[in-house]
């Protein structure tokens, strides 16, 4: 169910390599739990973040949540399509609904994240 080419956090973010950078979003499980996403607050390009730092925020009709950086790095792009179409997070959480891209990441930190199979088990236990 979850893409094999990504790694996953316990806060329900995904991260995958995209050329020299890493792209980050929230999982289908998180999007489903949030319900209809109505607003996404994106970070500034150029901002340097530590692993686990609140880097973006997502609001649904029901609630607001922070989105944390799965690994440390420098924000090099954000998905501005979410400004006018935050529903992309529900419609395509692992593709078009991505949040931001990181460069200069500490790749060793990726090793501590879950693979797709482990995340699937984690998410189903979170129900």
């Amino acid at each position, binding site marked *: 169910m979850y893409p094999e080419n990504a790694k996953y956090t316990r806060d329900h973010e995904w991260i995958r390599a995209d050329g020299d950078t890493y792209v980050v979003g929230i999982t289908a499980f998180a999007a489903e739990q949030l319900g*209809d996403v109505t607003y996404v*607050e994106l970070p500034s390009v150029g901002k340097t973040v530590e692993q686990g730092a609140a880097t973006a925020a997502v609001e649904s*009709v*029901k609630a607001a949540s922070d989105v944390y950086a799965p690994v440390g790095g420098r924000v090099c792009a954000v998905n501005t399509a979410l400004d006018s179409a*935050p529903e992309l997070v*529900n419609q395509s959480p692992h593709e078009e609904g991505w949040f931001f891209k990181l460069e200069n990441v500490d790749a060793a930190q990726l090793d501590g994240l879950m693979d797709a199979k482990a995340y699937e088990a984690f998410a189903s236990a979170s129900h």
Partner: protein
Amino acid sequence: MQRTPLYDEHLALGGKVVDFHGWALPVQFAGIVQEHTHTRTQASLFDCSHMGEFVVKGVDAIRAYAGLITSDLDALRVGRARYGLMLNDKGGIIDDIVTIRLADDELYVVTNAGPLEAVSGRICGAHAGCRDVSASTAKIDIQGPIARDILVRELPEAAELKYFEARRTHWQGSEIVLSRTGYTGEMGFELFVPADIAVDVWRRLLSHEGVAPAGLGARDTLRTEMGYSLSGQDFDESRTPLEASLDTFIAWNTEFVGKQALEAQKNAGGYDRLTAIRTGDRRSPRHEFEVQDGDARVGVVTSGTFGPSVGCGIGLAYLKPAYAVAGRTLTAGPKGLSIETAELPFYRQGTCRK
């Protein structure tokens, strides 16, 4: 958790069931925004069977009940419904209540699920002619611009009811109460039916084209767009009707529990007021966000959500009197969300009075 007679129907329709005041109720089916929009454009069915209902029978019982609520029941004609409040002796709001006059000597009373035990104790304790029928009654609401067109196919007399009118009638031989009331701002009806026919009523109404089920989530966004305050969230026993901006539902010419305290508060003035707030973008204020004017705390948000039909964040907040007027720019919440005080309702195109 307690289940309504429609619990299995909700599961079969894919409803996401949550705990609401101890009741297993669907928060959504297709999605809150979709259900909200469907209600504003077609018609939605809501299961409100968790709410409380009472029959007040006889002149003496009506007189005893009238002393418990802020409404002027002498002015309530047969076939009409009226919104009012039950207060404690300090003027705090125990619950908001809709009273229907079914006959000269009979009332039908609708209350919320949260404070039901306290409300039931007061009503049933007032007189032997007051009876709690909540357990045997299911409540199904059809709300939306086409609600009347749909309902008349099952109950032709629905066509005769004007806004806030109600009557006793029959569904396939079973006695029911039908009222043209609601909380969405749209043309709508509430059907109070015996629990054993709830599934039949639900399925028949749902079988019509243009009718879809909706959950608690859409109920909340719809009522917030109308600025209707929610029992237990926007007010409770710690707030009076004056603070909750419900002054218009106080019949000062009648006697009721809590009146003395209200009069004292009104004369003293200076109390907080529940006030409409909105954001300038898609971000939402949230329940318990503190409201600030610069560094000064001036209030607290009690309801906040994204308003799908108005396209921005909306809510209700208790604000100090100087701020309880439209057009004040303030901030709310830990991130200093910019908000503006506003007029109600947020949504003005509703069809409820058509």
